[in-house]
């Protein structure tokens, strides 16, 4: 049951309860799943699907209740992400930075900015992202700068890559130095503002329709009221990183589940039994069943860790301390590492259980592996394992930054 948030007028999206959010996500996921293979094959960007997602209210579920939003817990947001990703992980990835920046507004913006930006979200607007710079040596170096133009006015110049979501965004939050070499801030620019160009030049082997292209900022005018402090200053305990990461984990968990689903559909309808197995259906071959069991086991383990991590982020949000934030980061690290492994593995073993015919390119069954392989490289899973290891050996808590 979706209730309309009538107090915001007819222009606002529905405000959902946790149960509603999960049920709406399930419905949309099933719809998105139908077109996923074709969109991957023909590289059709999911514009209408994103509009449907916005209209459903799912992109507003993290707006705090104080601002008229649903204020749903991380546990629900994570589960919604996982469900959407099972349908089409490209669509699920696009609003990832949207949720991250809603979170940033919650923690870093002024009340006036919050009122304005949350209002935009409740009105169905989307936030993109323009953060990484491709030419930098370290992943977290930045050259984009807000140059002073007049008192309270700036002009933003630079170029950003891997800008997932920017193409479909209404607002693009851009990470930039405030004046040359100054502190990092976020400049909020409208997608349609003069000087903003979004180039759809993303050509990855997977996650092909995420439109994770390049954002060029050519002296874009920005005023003070559209600049927020960089939410990644990490001067104290935070869950900014663990929140962003648990959504990534949920996305890979969704890919893994989709791989099992498609494998089961193929085996029960299209696979021929191996002549020597002595069974009528490939689905009755105990070794095929065993392989499915191993895949199911890995994916359930990953799902359990994602749920556990989301609860840990909620718990840290409730009582924030170095310990609770560290525990959340470790729980999220485990979820990321497990979902990385489970998604790549399930998507690869799909072919082991389905047999020769599943390798036909027209079926696009390899998209699960390509999607998993691409998205799991977002930041290195090996480092999640390293942080878990440091904790296991010495009890060392992970570092305080945005990637864990």
């Amino acid at each position, binding site marked *: 049951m979706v209730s309309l948030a009538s107090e915001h007028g007819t222009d606002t999206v529905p405000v959902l309860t946790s149960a509603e959010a999960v049920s709406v996500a399930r419905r949309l996921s099933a719809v998105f799943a139908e077109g996923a293979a074709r969109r991957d094959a023909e590289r059709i960007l999911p514009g209408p699907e994103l509009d449907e997602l916005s209209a459903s209210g799912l992109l507003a579920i993290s707006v705090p209740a104080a601002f008229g939003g649903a204020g749903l817990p991380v546990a629900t947001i994570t589960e919604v992400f996982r469900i959407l990703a099972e349908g089409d992980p490209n669509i699920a990835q696009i609003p990832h930075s949207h949720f991250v920046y809603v979170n940033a507004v919650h923690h870093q913006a002024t009340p006036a900015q919050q009122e304005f930006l949350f209002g935009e979200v409740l009105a169905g607007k989307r936030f993109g992202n323009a953060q990484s710079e491709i030419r*930098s*040596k*370290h*992943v*977290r170096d930045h050259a984009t700068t807000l140059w002073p133009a007049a008192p309270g006015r700036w002009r933003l110049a630079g170029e950003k890559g*891997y800008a997932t979501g920017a193409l479909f965004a209404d607002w693009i939050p851009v990470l930039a130095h405030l004046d040359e070499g100054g502190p990092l801030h976020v400049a909020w620019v409208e997608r349609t503002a003069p000087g903003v160009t979004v180039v759809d030049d993303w*050509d*990855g*082997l*997977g996650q092909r329709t995420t439109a994770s292209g390049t954002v060029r900022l050519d002296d874009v005018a920005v005023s003070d009221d559209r600049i927020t402090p960089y939410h990644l200053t990490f001067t104290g305990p935070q869950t900014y990183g663990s929140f962003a990461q648990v959504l990534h984990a949920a996305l890979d968990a969704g890919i893994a589940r989709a791989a099992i689903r498609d494998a089961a559909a193929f085996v029960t309808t299209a696979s021929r039994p*191996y*002549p*020597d*197995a002595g069974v009528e259906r490939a689905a009755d*071959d105990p*070794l*095929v069943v*065993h*392989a499915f069991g191993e895949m199911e086991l890995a994916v359930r383990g990953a799902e359990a860790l994602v749920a556990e991590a989301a609860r840990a982020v909620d718990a840290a949000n409730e009582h924030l301390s170095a310990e609770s934030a560290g525990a959340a980061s470790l729980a999220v690290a485990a979820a990321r590492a497990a979902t990385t492994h489970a998604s*790549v593995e399930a998507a*690869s073993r799909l*072919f*082991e*259980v389905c*047999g*020769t015919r*599943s*390798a*036909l*390119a*027209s079926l696009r069954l*390899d998209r699960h*592996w*390509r999607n998993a*392989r*691409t998205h*799991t*490289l*977002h*930041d*290195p*899973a*090996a*480092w999640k394992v*390293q942080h878990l290891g440091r904790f296991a050996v010495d009890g060392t808590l992970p*570092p305080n*930054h945005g990637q864990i």
Partner: protein
Amino acid sequence: MTHRSNVEALYPQIAEGALRRELDGELPTGPVKRLKDAGLGALRVPRESGGDGLSWPELVQVWIDLAAADNNLPQAFRGHFAFAEDRLWHHRRGQDQSAWFARFTAGEIAGNAWSEVGPTPIDSQRTVLTAQADGSYRLDGEKYYTTGTIFAEWADVYVRRTNPHRPEEGEDDFAIAIVDTRQGGVTVVDDWDGFGQRGTGSGTTTFENVAVPAENVLPFGDRFPYQTAVYQLNLLATLVGIGKAALEDTITAVRGRERNYSHANAARVRDDAQVLARVGEIAAAIYAAEAATLRVAAAVEDVAAAAGADGASIARLNETAEVESAIAQVVVTDLILRATSDLFDTLGASATSRAKGLDRHWRNARTVSSHNPRILKSRVVGGYLVNGTPPPYAWAIGVTQRDAGTAS
């Protein structure tokens, strides 16, 4: 200069174009032509007949290195090496094969046309060789997965033979027809739609009223017995070559990486212990896979060298070769698939660019290994070891007339 050294001299040039052909979806027609001219098809032909007389371990090493240059090529020549081995087997058993050896040394090759997927029931074939009144034959039918035939002068076709002119000669039987693909009526279409091994030329071959002289029709029961092991060995060598190419690409990419994670163990990725360890693991997997594959080649050599032995000895050696190829498949498949997927763990997000094509190694390995699911092979191996159950195909050729088209 041996044929082998001529062939090996082509590798760098072949390797250079492999990624481009992959991205453009282009068949390796040029490389195949140059390899034929260099004498790849004559490597097993005896030296006295103008070949290199390579042993099986030597040939398999060539396959592996060729697959490292271009994953498609050993598979594109698979049917040829099987047919050539059949000729060599009969040469060793005293039949004159000089005409064929001359063709092979002149650069002619054969492709495979055995499979009929779809509604074909086991123990029947819809590709029919019809005896003519003059003793010659005509061939009609359609074969799928005819790997390499698109590049070949000859097609090695598994057929049902019928003789409407002499019904008193009994029921139809199964035979091998060697068909000159250069004549009218033979059409090869590259309709292979796999997401890997795209350049193997595994298309569909159609035969329409094609003439086959009687001397090119061979009794199925005379086929060399270790064809199944040879087929598997070709796939194993291809997998290992894919692994070697993947390792090479990984090393190059790691050397070229500049951005490292800020909490990493070392400033340069190439000094990071975790990254190096992962490269080491990938290399080790490929080392063992190559060693296992060459060991299977030695087992195949043992049966190939026993052409003059008694039937029981041949059967025993053949069973060994067959079992060893199945054993190796279980472990090699696992090692190579893991290596081609794990290589991304040493690289960053930029490795996922389609233009770099680093996913092709996994796609190719996944496609090769889908030919014979590893999980089913492991049961065959276990059944043999625990219960002495013979592997299913060791006895399939030359003993029964079970559908040999599944023995790929």
